[in-house]
């Protein structure tokens, strides 16, 4: 079994599915086949990624499942993929959310189903490939290729202002990532290597590190997004179709955090140390400010979008603490946010499909008509708030513990954000679910059907599972995180 190129298979199976869909002619009868092919492909990919997890060796801190081929004859660019403890759960998060997204689009996507499914499967390939790349150029190619399907998903199947949102999304993130391309070429010129693995260390003088760090920062800060580079996110989230929002919040934002850990911390430790006060400041502003903004929203999706920015602020705090609690907390927070915010967007999608509005004031008293919905929504809402026993708690707790070693001001900022998150989430929940049903249009609203249950219940289980057994997730990433920390400390000790 070990001889099988399991990782490549996981990466390229979705493309194969897309190819099959490409050959199906779209008409009344075949639409269901198209959806089924997409769904089963993505489920197959999920199972493959679980197989990778099963075979994953927690006591091996370096890359596993490696595959390496010469790619360019004149430069040391390789097709080099592999997985370590940091990328493992990012890959699984991507493969876990994609089938749910396809299922969530089953009824709500009515036009151009074929193109939609192809875009989603292409997106899945690109996401997995990005997290599994060990060659920086390969990473960059996947990192930018994400823009293509996402641009189309927002632009074709999005809401009213979809064109504005799609252009803003594309150009904003492109602007960030092209600077990374220059940094990558500079790294190659200085070291003659493109391998993320060999470049982990401290190979550049501090002066160069600072420029490189800024170039990487431009792309990751836009992607994650950090305040004040977050303005594309609410637009993109609000206009994207439900499944698009789920992937956007669930996986694409994590690309930024993943990049910070791999590139900024791993390759440029001195510059990371130099800039960590900047990151802390921006993150605290993000956590507090965007929480307050979220409180003022009347559009449910926009509220969750702003809450994403706040939660990602906690992630960047955790990453740039560079201690084991902080980094592990940031990783768990990313996984948890991927599941929780994805689930929240799906919950919004459920009522949006029924009522075609996302206005908070339109709803109220849904608990009377939709008890199951109210229950699962509550689990995700509490996960987002960070109630003990849910996944959100582990991440937030670890980040706060780690922050105490850094500075108590950061702790105060982060804790304020967590309190505020409870305020806006509970307030949202109260306005939508509780109260008396005053709107007559809501009286006929139906509770979750079977399809929606199949989508939401695994997510609810995941939220609680991560909250109760965090060690399963922390264990594989312990060794790579330790090596990043020791590298960081030895670089900054001199």
């Amino acid at each position: 079994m070990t001889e099988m190129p399991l990782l490549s298979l996981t990466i390229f199976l979705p493309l194969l599915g897309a190819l099959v869909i490409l050959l199906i002619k779209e008409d009344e009868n075949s639409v269901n086949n198209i959806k089924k092919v997409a769904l089963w492909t993505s489920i197959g990919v999920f199972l493959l990624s679980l197989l990778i997890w099963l075979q994953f060796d927690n006591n091996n801190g370096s890359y596993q499942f490696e595959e390496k081929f010469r790619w360019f004859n004149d430069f040391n660019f390789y097709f080099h993929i592999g997985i370590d403890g940091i990328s493992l759960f990012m890959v699984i998060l991507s493969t876990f959310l994609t089938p749910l997204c396809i299922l969530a689009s089953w009824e709500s996507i009515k036009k151009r189903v074929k193109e939609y499914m192809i875009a989603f499967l292409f997106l899945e390939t690109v996401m997995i490939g990005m997290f599994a790349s060990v060659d920086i150029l390969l990473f960059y190619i996947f990192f930018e290729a994400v823009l293509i399907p996402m641009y189309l998903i927002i632009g074709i199947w999005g809401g009213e202002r979809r064109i504005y949102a799609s252009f803003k999304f594309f150009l904003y993130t492109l602007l960030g990532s092209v600077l990374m391309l220059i940094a990558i070429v500079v790294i190659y010129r200085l070291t003659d290597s493109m391998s993320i693995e060999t470049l982990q260390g401290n190979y550049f003088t501090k002066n160069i590190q600072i420029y490189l760090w800024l170039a990487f920062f431009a792309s990751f800060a836009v992607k994650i997004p950090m305040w004040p580079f977050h303005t594309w996110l609410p637009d993109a989230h609000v206009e994207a179709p439900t499944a698009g929002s789920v992937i956007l919040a669930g996986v694409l934002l994590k690309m930024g955090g993943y990049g910070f850990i791999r590139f900024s911390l791993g390759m440029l430790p001195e510059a990371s140390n130099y800039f960590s006060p900047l990151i802390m400041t921006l993150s605290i502003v993000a956590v507090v400010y965007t929480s307050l903004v979220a409180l003022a929203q009347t559009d449910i999706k926009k509220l969750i979008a702003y809450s994403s920015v706040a939660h990602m602020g906690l992630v960047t705090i955790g990453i740039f603490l560079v201690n084991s609690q902080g980094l592990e907390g940031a990783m768990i927070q990313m996984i948890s946010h991927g599941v929780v915010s994805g689930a929240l967007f799906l919950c919004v999608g459920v009522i949006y499909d029924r009522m075609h509005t996302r206005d908070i004031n339109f709803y109220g008293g849904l608990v009377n008509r939709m008890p199951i919905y109210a229950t699962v929504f509550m689990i995700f809402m509490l996960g987002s708030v960070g109630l003990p026993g849910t996944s959100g708690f582990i991440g937030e707790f670890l980040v706060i513990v780690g922050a105490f070693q850094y500075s108590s001001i950061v702790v105060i900022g982060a804790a304020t954000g967590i309190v505020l998150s409870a305020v806006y989430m509970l307030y949202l929940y109260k306005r939508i679910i509780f109260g008396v049903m005053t709107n007559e249009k809501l009286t006929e609203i139906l509770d979750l059907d079977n399809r929606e249950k199949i989508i939401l219940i695994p997510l609810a289980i995941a939220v609680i599972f991560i909250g109760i057994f965090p060690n399963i997730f922390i264990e594989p990433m312990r060794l790579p995180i330790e090596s990043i920390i020791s590298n960081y400390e030895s670089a900054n000790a001199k």
Partner: protein
Amino acid sequence: MLNNLMHILFVPEVTLAILAVACLMYGLFSKNNSFNKATNFATLSLLFVTVLIFFDFSTKFALFDSFFSNTQFTKFFKILTTLGAAISLIISKNYFIDSKINKFEIPTLLLFSTLGMLIMISSKNLMIMYLAIELQSLSLYVVASIKRNSIESAESGVKYFILGALSSGILLYGFSLVYGFTGHTSFEGITNSLVEIDNLPIGLIFGLVFVLVGLAFKVSAVPFHMWTPDVYEGAPTSITAFFAIVPKLAAIALIFRFCLEPFGKFYFEWTQVIFFLSIASMFLGAIAAIAQKNLKRLLAYSSIGHVGYVLIALVSVSDQGLKSASIYMFIYLVMNIAVFSIILSLKKSDAYVEKISSLSGLSKSNPVISASLAIIMLSMAGIPPFIGFFGKLYVFIAAIESQLYILAVLGVLASVISAFYYLRIIKGMYFDESDDNQTFEFTISSESKVILSVLMILITFFILYPSLLIDAVSSISL
């Protein structure tokens, strides 16, 4: 003696000259269908010459030796030029017939113009260089205004002619200054006379700048680009395709050789000029294209932008720069042929599509064509995994290796701006709902269909095996 004569006949330029005259005769004396026959003849001639160039029938004869250079670099660009000319004839044949400008003079003139370009690429002497430039330009002035009864076509021809003549004058004046200060017209003579000089005399700098201005006009680098959008828009689309695809290659090769060969030592002087031309072209190409409504004008500005990127490779003054420029021009050629083969076959209610807005709804009626066009646009914008990304990557590698960080950063920023208008075309096809019920018609000859499919495969799957192209240019040097 006889053997030698046979050899001379198979020198690509000589062969092409003979074939061009033959094409003229063939068209003149065929009673009917002369356009068809002449076009087929011209296409075959070009392909034949490509083969000759490929198998290296070299020009190492006493007469030619000091006039022509034959290196890997010139060979690569010559193959691209003849192939590009042949393919652009194939893809535009239907358009010519359909819009009733099927005159046999067109393929003949294009053959002569291609001949001029081949000599341009190889020329090692200022006089030959000038004659070659004039040969290709004069032919192109005529074909730009070939649609006599159309005001736009005539206007574009006249504009092209006046500005082209002006630039030729400037070029010639530059040549005369260079000759006056060095006493030589051959590249080697100029190089030798400059060996012992450390600082260029002011007159020679003037000469150099005048020549660069003239050449910048030919490659349509900003601020000498004014003719490009008007000529692209006014000329019949099939001629525009030729303009966009072929002459750029020759002019770029020439500007590289002129800068690096006789004046290679004084790169400090001319890189300043090229540096500015490059930045101005990238940004003007990107920004001015945003406001365009006409597809051909947009492609004109897009080509101006692309020229800016190639010039980055020139500023880097290195072997890597030469390789990167060769790769970039190859990719430019591929993308432009692909996009024009689509534009030349796409009709909406009996008129060829020229407005961006009239693309709306294309993705519904012709999903394959619109997907292809979308891929080409993303590739032109330099978004991976498509081929255009690798062109930009190589140019930036060349820039960074020569420590041109500012140029590289400005280059990527311009590429973000230019992404906007490429995306606008995708938006037109996919996001906008068409409000009218006009249907699209895609009529394409089977030859162009094959070409388009091959190019689309190349554009999409280049990433799988990039070494194919990279090995081809690995040995390139001047």
